[in-house]
């Protein structure tokens, strides 16, 4: 009865949300949202890169005159804020969205509409923060915005207002996504996908989401205090009222240190997918890799004050935080050695993703070693606020996170678009990035040890910093060229790259069993998983013979794709080059998918109106109007069922 009522509607003419711009605005499909994250984040990566390059041009020689001191402050603040919150985190989010449901054998995330909401809020927050450039009022207090410099007295303009509100919006996006992915990974694993069979990227995502939902409250509270101080005259950071400026630093770094693991763990996860595939060997020490992820996350909550050795916390606190920081090097080192162990004796294929993955392993290690140097308070006192620290965190963020994310982009681009990226351009991209990155950041170690402080606009000649800065700027120019090559590769390959087929790399995990790009419903039949490497069990059982959790192996074909059975080496869908239009629709297969809806977007617009009212002379009616739109959209959203009635 119910079916007959619903059927005509679904079979009728295409709904307006099924094509064109509406299909993106109203989408609840995790794959589309993942792509939105990917392209938006790459755009912000370019913006942050331009900011960085202007900084490098200014510092090329002594007494640079390209930008004013004021603009320089805005540039380094926005460079940090953009790269952390609008480039690396959302690039990771692109992979969370695109990959996690595919890797665990699900059709979507647990809360598809909340997922769309997360993306729209991220987009709104990132635009909001950058709109400040139009007012010549970009945030200028550093990405850490230390109190009391961030208060109204010392930062009277709109600059830090944009930062405070923008960060609050971006935090909301990450939190919403965090609850969503925790639920998805706990609750939507396909039958047989035990925790210890999950791909390591899914594990990295799982651990990262806990870091997000447990560390973002600190920054939410710290920023709320600042917002209240700036807008309502409270005293949280008012020294005259007895406030302690260290409150901000503690709350900020209680968030800030877990945040660095939020930035690196997803890249670790991607590399842990790439290395086994191109070594033709199972990941070395899978359980230890998982435990070290968890341990890094846990210890990550106990090391925040190592960012604050210079403030003088006393010998007890310094010792404790020094020791916990050294401890965290153990699980991190374990990961490095396990990756080496994975490659050891494997039949290595040096494709572009593999090169970037090896780039992470080598460059992150350098950054990790300078990181351990900071864990000793006396040594840290010599390095803090110098270019040595800048060198350190660019080795872990660019050499680590970005290298890993590039590896992920090259590796998963075929799954996302159905086409391979150019290997020739990819290798140019890799080698130029590798060389440019080291030229840019390695000399900063020496500049820092020679006493060059961070965040300076100009420096005088003959302090021994000139050559280091010349080299750094030349390196940055090479990075610009490398990034251009990447963009050209991305655009060209998207349009006319070679068709990829289901499994271009011979990879072990189940996302490679379905067509590229996957149909809306991912899996026509939810797969049953009996091992860590189902694809290898079928195609190359000798590779997984020694892996626990796959004793019997996957002899039986259990993955069905669009009515055709996949899992054989010659899957029907694999041979259809025009795969995109070949597989049947969800409706034809009788699979119920979430209804597209623009309500999450409307809710986001309500929030935007509110925040606009707040920054625009604290206009109360506008703030209330935004709140009403938000609540109305929220009710409309929550009172509508996720899926069409069936």
């Amino acid at each position, binding site marked *: 009865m119910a079916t007959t009522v619903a059927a005509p509607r679904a079979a009728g003419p295409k709904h307006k949300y099924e094509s064109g711009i509406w299909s993106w605005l109203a989408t609840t499909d995790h794959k589309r949202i993942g792509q939105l994250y990917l392209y938006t984040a790459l755009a912000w990566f370019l913006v942050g890169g331009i900011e960085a390059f202007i900084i490098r041009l200014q510092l090329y020689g002594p007494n640079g005159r390209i930008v004013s001191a004021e603009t320089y402050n805005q540039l380094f603040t926005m460079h940090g804020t953009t790269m952390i919150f609008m480039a690396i985190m959302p690039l990771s989010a692109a992979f969370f969205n695109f990959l996690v449901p595919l890797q665990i054998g699900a059709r979507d995330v*647990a809360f598809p509409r909340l997922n769309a909401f997360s993306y729209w809020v991220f987009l709104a927050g990132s635009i909001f923060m950058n709109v400040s450039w139009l007012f010549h009022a970009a945030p200028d207090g550093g990405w850490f915005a230390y109190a009391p410099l961030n208060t109204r007295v010392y930062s009277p303009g709109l600059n830090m207002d944009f930062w405070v509100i923008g960060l609050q919006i971006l935090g909301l996006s990450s*939190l919403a996504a*965090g609850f969503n992915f925790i639920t998805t990974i706990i*609750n939507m694993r396909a039958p047989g996908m035990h925790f210890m069979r999950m791909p390591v990227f899914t594990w990295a995502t799982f651990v990262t989401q806990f870091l997000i939902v447990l560390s973002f*409250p600190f920054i939410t509270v710290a920023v709320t205090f600042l917002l209240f101080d700036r807008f309502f005259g409270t005293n949280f950071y008012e020294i005259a009222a*007895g406030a*302690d400026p260290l409150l901000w630093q503690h*709350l900020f770094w209680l968030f800030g240190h877990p945040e660095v693991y939020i930035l690196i763990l997803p890249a670790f996860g991607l590399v842990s997918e790439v290395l086994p595939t191109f070594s033709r060997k199972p990941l070395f020490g899978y359980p230890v890799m998982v435990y070290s992820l968890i341990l890094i996350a846990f210890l990550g909550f106990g090391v925040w004050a190592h960012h604050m050795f210079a403030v003088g916390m006393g010998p007890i606190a310094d010792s404790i935080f020094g020791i916990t920081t050294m401890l965290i090097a153990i699980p991190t080192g374990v990961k490095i050695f396990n990756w080496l162990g994975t490659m050891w004796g494997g039949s290595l294929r040096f494709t572009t993703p593999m090169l970037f993955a090896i780039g992470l392993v080598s460059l992150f290690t350098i950054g990790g070693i300078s990181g351990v140097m900071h864990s000793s308070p006396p040594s840290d006192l010599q390095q803090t606020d110098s270019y040595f620290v800048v060198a350190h965190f660019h080795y872990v963020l660019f050499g680590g996170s970005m290298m890993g994310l590039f590896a992920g982009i090259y590796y998963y681009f075929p799954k996302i678009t159905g086409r391979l990226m150019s290997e020739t351009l990819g290798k140019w991209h890799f080698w130029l990035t590798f060389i440019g990155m080291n030229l840019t950041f390695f000399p900063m170690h020496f500049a820092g040890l020679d006493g060059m402080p961070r965040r300076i606009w100009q420096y005088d000649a003959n302090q021994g910093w000139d050559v280091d800065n010349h080299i750094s700027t030349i390196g940055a120019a090479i990075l610009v060229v490398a990034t251009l090559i990447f963009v050209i590769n991305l655009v060209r390959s998207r349009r006319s790259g070679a068709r990829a087929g289901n499994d271009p790399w011979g990879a072990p995990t189940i996302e490679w069993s379905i067509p590229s790009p996957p149909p809306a419903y991912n899996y026509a039949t939810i797969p049953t998983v009996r091992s860590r490497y189902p694809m290898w069990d079928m195609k190359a059982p000798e590779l997984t013979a020694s892996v626990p959790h796959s004793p019997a192996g996957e002899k039986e074909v259990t993955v069905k794709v669009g009515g055709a059975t996949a899992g054989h080496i010659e899957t029907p869908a694999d041979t259809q080059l025009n795969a995109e239009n070949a597989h049947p629709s969800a409706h034809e297969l009788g699979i119920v998918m979430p209804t597209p809806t623009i309500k999450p977007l409307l809710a986001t617009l309500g929030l935007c109106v509110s925040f606009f009212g707040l920054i625009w002379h604290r206009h109360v009616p506008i703030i209330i109007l935004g709140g009403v739109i938000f609540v109305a959209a929220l009710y409309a959203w929550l009172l509508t069922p996720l899926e069409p009635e069936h």
Partner: protein
Amino acid sequence: MATAALAEAHDEHHYTSTGLPHTKIAIWAFIGSECFFFASLIATYLIYKGRSVVGPFPHTPWVDPATGQHFKPILNIPVTSASTFVLLMSSLAMVLAHSAVVRGDRKWSKIWLASTALLGATFLGFQAYEFTSFVHEGLKITTNLFGSTFFTLTGFHGAHVTAGVLWLVTMLFIDFKRGLGPRDAINVDVMALYWHFVDVVWIAIFTLVYLIQ
């Protein structure tokens, strides 16, 4: 309830790996996150305790050296004890509402949901009274560190109670519109978990802010 859950678990479309509903996992993850939110607010209150350079103060009287004006200790323990009791009783009403929904008892589900919402609203009434009388006695959010931390901490708790009351009223509205039955039990359960958590936060605030000096 048991049969409903079982039926859901065997429906391939609503398959979950743990057999537990998504919303319940999400709400517990949310509550875990909220622990950090309130821990930060409470920590700030405690860190700044006794650091205000001007009064009025929570537990001790204060004379303004400039004007010679006398200020009483701000916190009103009898009133807050009453509001604490009201919130505790709202939790009892909440669990009874949930039981009624599970039983499919439409009369008592409405009565207990309404009682919970009403007790929550009463708590908010107490808080409104408390805030206005404090302002009257000379403590505003801008006055000193005590004012800033106190109003922010209890204000955010109040905002959580307000959201809870709205949720309860919405659920009550649905109950009147189409009646809540065993299949809605999970939604009421999730709401109840949120509500009890807000209660639990108040238990901590009552001791750490009001009773300990």
